[in-house]
């Protein structure tokens, strides 16, 4: 029993980071599932993170902190969507990356909100039950979305935009909604990240986290909501796992593992299509 609690003490923070990364990965996934690769979740996260941090510093209750952070993310996402939805997918990816770079400059200079170079210390740690509760709610929402008309429309849109349009799907509207959801989830994730780290600076929401959220989504699979959640868990746990297995080659092993998954499972760990294909192949042979 003691061993178990030791283990928990060691991996508690890994689990917490996996959950926050899952939020970011889901935020990236929802836009990707409407046909756009975008790094703008970083920006939604930064907005939610700094707004949330300020509210915690000013002693507001946690529920308010998360709700307002989500709304702040939503606000930014609507502006980003209004500007970026004119672009094609590849240009969108580049433009959103540029936006991440710009955000850092803005964060550095908006010192009253962000503390500038010094960043912000947050006088409160994130209770793990809150984080769990938020992730469970988010996952439930994604489950409901997956089985809603939004889910159906975005699956068609992603595979074939012209077919979706001729079916009566308003592409812009679906993409706007996707960005809105991405903004809310990214904003809440940003506030959670701020409280988890208890310190945020311009470097918290920068290229590192952009890479993490894309890698987690691609690794887990971007065709089902469970993909990003699993991807975030695996991607977050991977460094400690690899350190355990091959201590001296940890970083190399990390990279090799990711490469292997991308080569052999290009659609990610969770791929509903592959599962159905396997099932129908089995059905035919029996």
């Amino acid at each position, binding site marked *: 029993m003691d061993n178990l609690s030791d283990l928990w003490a060691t991996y508690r923070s890994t689990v917490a980071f996996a959950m926050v990364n899952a939020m970011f990965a889901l935020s990236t996934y929802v836009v990707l599932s409407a046909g756009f690769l975008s790094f703008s979740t970083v920006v939604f996260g930064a907005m939610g993170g700094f707004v949330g941090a300020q509210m915690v510093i000013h002693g507001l209750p946690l529920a308010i902190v998360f709700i307002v952070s989500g709304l702040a993310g939503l606000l930014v996402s609507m502006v980003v969507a209004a500007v970026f939805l004119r672009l094609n997918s590849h240009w969108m990816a580049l433009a959103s990356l540029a936006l991440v770079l710009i955000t850092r400059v803005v964060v550095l200079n908006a010192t009253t909100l962000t503390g500038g170079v010094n960043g912000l210390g947050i006088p409160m740690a994130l209770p793990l039950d809150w984080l769990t509760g938020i992730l469970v709610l988010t996952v439930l*929402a994604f489950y*409901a*979305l997956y*089985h*809603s*008309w*939004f889910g*159906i*429309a975005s*699956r*068609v849109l992603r*595979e*074939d935009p*012209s*077919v979706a*349009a*001729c*079916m*009566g*799907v*308003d*592409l812009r509207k679906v993409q706007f*909604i996707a960005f809105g959801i991405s903004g809310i989830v990214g904003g809440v994730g940003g506030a959670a990240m701020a409280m988890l780290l208890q310190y945020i600076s311009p470097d918290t929401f920068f290229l590192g986290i952009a890479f993490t959220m894309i890698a987690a989504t691609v690794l887990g699979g971007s*065709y089902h909501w469970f993909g990003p959640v699993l991807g975030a868990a695996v991607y977050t746990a991977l460094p400690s796992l690899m350190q355990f297995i091959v201590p001296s080659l940890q970083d190399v092993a990390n990279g090799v593992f990711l490469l292997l998954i991308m080569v052999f499972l290009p659609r990610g760990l969770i791929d*509903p*299509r592959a599962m*159905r*294909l396997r099932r*129908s192949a089995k059905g035919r042979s029996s």
Partner: protein
Amino acid sequence: MSAILELDRASKSFGGIAAVSELSFVAGRGRVTGLMGPNGAGKTTVINLISGLLTCDSGSIKLDGAEISRSKPHDIGALGLARTYQNVRLISGLTALEQVVAGSFVKRDTSFIASFLHTPAARRRMRALRDKAMHLLERVGMAHAAGTLAETLSYGEQRRVEIARALGADPVLLLLDEPTAGMNPQESNEIGLLTHRLRDEGLSILMVEHNMKLVVDFCDSVVVVNFGRHIADGKPLDCIKDPKVQEAYFGKQRIDADGLGAIG
């Protein structure tokens, strides 16, 4: 005969080359109208103009009386146009039934929020649409494959599923873009019979078709285009005998129309 679709001097050019020029024709309500023309005649451009994937440079297109030449595809879809594609464009990863359910998107009658919350009304509506989708699969003879991934079906079967998907939208006009390409004569004939059954229930159909036999057997009237221009219209057999049509299809030398049986 009232018109379900009316093109009036519709034109479209790509970089100075006119793909469709001043094309006018009418498709009658409750009839099967064929759109014919040799390869490169601009048939696909016409279909894309009607469905809104391309926008006319000039001229007008009216669907059921409403002007659609400047409308977006999803608005035209909402007005009651549904289509299939020359090269079958089903959605990868969805079962046959899911394809047809997705096709009924314009008939969902459910707001985004209600659908997200899965309210009782939203669930009832979804169940009704699923039942309807099943029924449509039965009509095209694909009920046995409802739960099968559509991409694992044969080409001919995929075409049927695609037609069922278009019917899911309860269209006022169904556009079939070469519905029998790659099918054997028997399968083609079944598609022809299906268009007649649908027509007899009141559906209007515009069919782009290469297969002369199918056009003669199943179209109530045809429009023939070449180089983006209208060259003939009327009853299928009359059109095929028209010297201009013969020239478009077979070149200058005239072939006796009675010899056409060999082509079908």
